[in-house]
């Protein structure tokens, strides 16, 4: 464990970009966790007297068309958006990774079946597919997560399959067989963990994408329903007001979205460095 | 014995550094040797000794992280290290050629091999059309590839490893270069194929009066095939001598150890002695003699710079203050 922490500190310290990304991630996670307690105002409380106020001392990010404090809403939305993204990516990663690994390792019918399913999913424009799934199954949080997970599945499947395929014939796999490992252990303990580093980079890029996806769904009305604060909805609601000069309603949630995606993209390399033992000196 | 008193290639005080994440690697330090037209010189050393770096430096194809920090490589009157890229392009392929360890990696996988040879000829000669094609077939036959007309249309993946190697040799000798550098051409291949390739190189060298630099870690190969041997250790040339003289009486402690660790027909396993220590880290500050840390004959005077170059016999040079 201590070795991990030491290596972690080395990775973070070595590259300022990684350090920045990790720092930002910690910040976002903190906001997600304690945000609702930190928010100065109730995110759902409307105030007809203070609608469309520009940023001021009382409302740092201004208020929206219903008089709700935008700062509070942005902060509270962090938890929701982060949850959706992490849940969707984790689901995708685990299921897609497992399917792809089995396909790559066992070949034959497993391979054929899994790749056909992945190809079918990829045949659709992915966002449209997500829309379709949510529209068909209903506008719940769970369905948004499932839809996002499903459309991301093929990336993990393909990547896991390719990586497992390459390593399947490696010397250390044969050696592991001689050491008494059956097929299941070979895949789970020897082959798949070595495929994780490249998949981690994919996962972190995916996190950013998943947030955008959820925000996009909300933007067109298929995602989270108002008045729940969520960055996508907030941008959607605020878009209408930009023309009339109330720029802050869409800008701040938009900035939050941007920061989160930016952070996750940068995180990718750092995560890979963290779990790849070859990066250890 | 080769003719001509003038050296075809004279490498003097060649020094090369690499910039890496962990510091500057002083890969070569004042490496020097020479060869004449038609001569075959073997460069031996363990991995990390700088053999391949020397070859890449001579041809001007070092990776971008490398810097030549000193020395000259004079070839036919031109210092290759100071030449302009345009001049080097004229020389490479025509007067200077190189073959590499992994033949498949050296061939373009998406072009038939005949076309690749034709490319070289087109670049450096005025042959065109039917005469060009004929020359390609001639070259393939020269490197003992059976059925050259059919093979010329084949892609590298359709040929065996040994054949790919021969194609690579054909590419290299297409314009009858004066100097061929062979970087580990036989490492990792069967002994019979190896003998065939080395025989071929020997024949071509004789027919075209081509000088050859044979880089390998296999001492037995250079013992059989080379006129002279250059022994390298950790970026230094430690000994240079005619092959027979070197093997009969090595003067540098490292050379003696290298010979003692090479299996021989009459020797038993117990006779093989390993070389103590390991190649020094070329990033760290180093003493003038880089073998000092592993040498059983080391003494205080070995710490005095510069590294000596003593002549101990006809054409026999040793970089040691206390030669055997």
């Amino acid at each position: 464990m201590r070795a991990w922490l030491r290596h972690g500190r080395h990775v973070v310290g070595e590259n300022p970009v990684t350090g920045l990304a990790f720092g930002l991630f910690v910040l976002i996670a903190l906001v997600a966790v304690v945000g609702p307690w930190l928010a100065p105002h109730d995110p759902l409380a409307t105030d007809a007297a203070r609608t469309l106020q520009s940023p001021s001392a009382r409302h740092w990010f201004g208020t929206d068309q219903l008089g709700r404090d935008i700062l509070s809403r942005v902060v509270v939305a962090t938890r929701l958006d982060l949850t959706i993204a992490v849940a969707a990516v984790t689901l995708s990663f685990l299921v897609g990774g497992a399917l792809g690994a089995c396909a790559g390792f066992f070949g034959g019918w497993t391979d054929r079946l899994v790749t056909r399913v992945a190809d079918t999913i990829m045949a659709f424009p992915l966002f449209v597919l997500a829309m379709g799934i949510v529209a068909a199954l209903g506008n719940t949080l769970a369905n948004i997560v499932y839809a996002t997970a499903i459309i991301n599945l093929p990336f993990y499947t393909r990547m896991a399959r390719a990586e497992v395929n390459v390593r399947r014939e490696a010397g250390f796999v044969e050696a592991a067989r001689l050491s008494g490992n059956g097929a299941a252990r070979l895949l789970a303990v020897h082959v798949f963990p070595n495929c994780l580093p490249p998949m981690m980079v994919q996962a972190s890029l995916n996190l950013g994408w998943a947030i955008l996806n959820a925000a996009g769904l909300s933007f067109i009305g298929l995602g989270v329903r108002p008045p729940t604060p969520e960055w996508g909805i907030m941008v959607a609601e605020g878009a209408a007001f930009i023309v009339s000069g109330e720029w802050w309603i869409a800008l701040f949630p938009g900035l939050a979205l941007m920061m989160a995606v930016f952070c996750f993209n940068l995180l990718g390399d750092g995560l890979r460095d963290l779990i790849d033992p070859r990066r250890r000196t | 014995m080769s003719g001509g008193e003038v050296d075809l290639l004279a490498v003097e005080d060649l020094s090369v550094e690499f910039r890496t994440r962990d510091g500057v690697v002083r890969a070569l330090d004042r490496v020097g040797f020479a060869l004449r037209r038609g001569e075959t010189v073997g460069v031996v050393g363990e991995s990390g000794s700088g053999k391949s770096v020397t070859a890449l430096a001579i041809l001007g194809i070092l990776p971008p992280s490398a810097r030549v920090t000193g020395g000259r490589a004079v070839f036919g009157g031109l210092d290759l290290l100071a030449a302009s890229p345009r001049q080097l392009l004229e020389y490479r392929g025509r007067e200077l050629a190189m073959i590499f360890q992994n033949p498949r990696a050296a061939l373009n996988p998406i072009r038939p091999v005949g076309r690749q040879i034709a490319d070289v000829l087109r670049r450096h000669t005025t042959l065109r059309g039917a005469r060009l094609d004929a020359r390609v077939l001639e070259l393939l036959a020269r490197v003992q590839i059976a059925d050259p007309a059919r093979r010329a249309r084949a892609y590298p993946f359709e040929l065996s490893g040994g054949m790919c190697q021969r194609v690579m040799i054909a590419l290299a000798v297409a314009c009858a270069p004066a100097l061929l550098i062979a970087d580990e051409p036989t490492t990792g291949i069967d002994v019979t194929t190896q003998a065939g390739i080395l025989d071929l190189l020997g024949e071509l060298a004789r027919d075209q009066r081509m000088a050859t630099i044979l880089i390998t870690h296999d001492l037995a190969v250079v013992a059989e095939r080379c006129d002279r041997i250059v022994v390298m250790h950790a970026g230094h040339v430690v000994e240079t001598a005619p092959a027979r003289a070197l093997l009969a009486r090595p003067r540098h402690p490292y050379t003696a150890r290298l010979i003692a660790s090479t299996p021989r027909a009459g020797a038993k396993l117990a006779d093989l002695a390993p070389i103590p220590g390991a190649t020094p880290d070329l990033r760290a500050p180093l003493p003038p003699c880089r073998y000092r840390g592993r040498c059983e004959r080391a003494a205080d005077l070995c710490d005095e710079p510069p590294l000596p170059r003593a002549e101990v016999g006809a054409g026999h040079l040793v970089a040691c203050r206390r030669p055997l």
Partner: protein
Amino acid sequence: MSLLDVRSLTKRFPARGGGRWLHAVDDVTFAIEAGESVGLVGESGCGKSTLVRLVTRLLEPTDGRILFEGHDVGAIPAARFTHTAARRRIQMVFQDPLDSLNPRFTAFDTIAEPLRRLGTADERTGVTARVAEAAELVGLPRALLGRFPHQLSGGQQQRVGIARAVVLRPALLVLDEPTSALDVSVQTVVLHLLAELRQRLGMSYLFVSHDLNLVRLLTDRVLVMYLGRIVETGASQDVFDRPAHPYTRALMSAVPALEPGERRMRVRLAGEPRSPIDPAPDACRFHGRCPDGVERCTREAPALRQAPEGDRRAACHFAFDGAAALPTG
């Protein structure tokens, strides 16, 4: 009872084009006694790697039997063999040390793996002690046990590979070109180590190499393979000095020698080996490249003939007809 008894072992792979078969290993018969060191040589494509994988039960044989300590292990499918008692008795050291070590396992984990998977209850409780013992046997400093493969030198990596292979004290150790990726002086150290280990642990070796000098140094007997078949067997030094089969003669003559006195007249082989796909059953597979060769060689495949004296065999119609040492020149 021999430790390993291979009889008429055959492995065929389906070749491109359907209905055709690549004869990787064809009707191979040999035995290894307890404590014996046997070498296996031949050019690439001769079937050495396939034979090795059959013997270590990583591949299923198409035909023939593999008897290990009296049990027919060839009949047990590879997947099930992993869980038999014999699995720990046959182990292997690989050619490329870096490739044969899991990049995510420390040296300790790598050496401990066989103990954890195949060890007895006793062995599993004393893992740390046994790993330390194995490390000491192979001369690997304890401090290096916590390192990952990329943090070790080539020689150290190979020591880890050897430690892993011997930690369970196998009866048969297969060595697949164990030193070809190493520098000559590291090679010397590893060879000495292997010789010493054999003495101490009483193992048998199957030593595969294309470096004939090493085979001569480390083995008692040698098997020469060509295109899936064994073409010569005998005591290593004998086969080296007086090869009987024309292929072995060509092989031995091609070995580069340090001393001019050891060099032999080169026997050149013409052309490429025949195709191992559907080879003609009644012709000698070496015919065409063989410097000798008569009409008989095209219609009668030679079987392994016994030499008049000594335990030598060669698959040539003319072997031992006044075989002499290769002329030096």
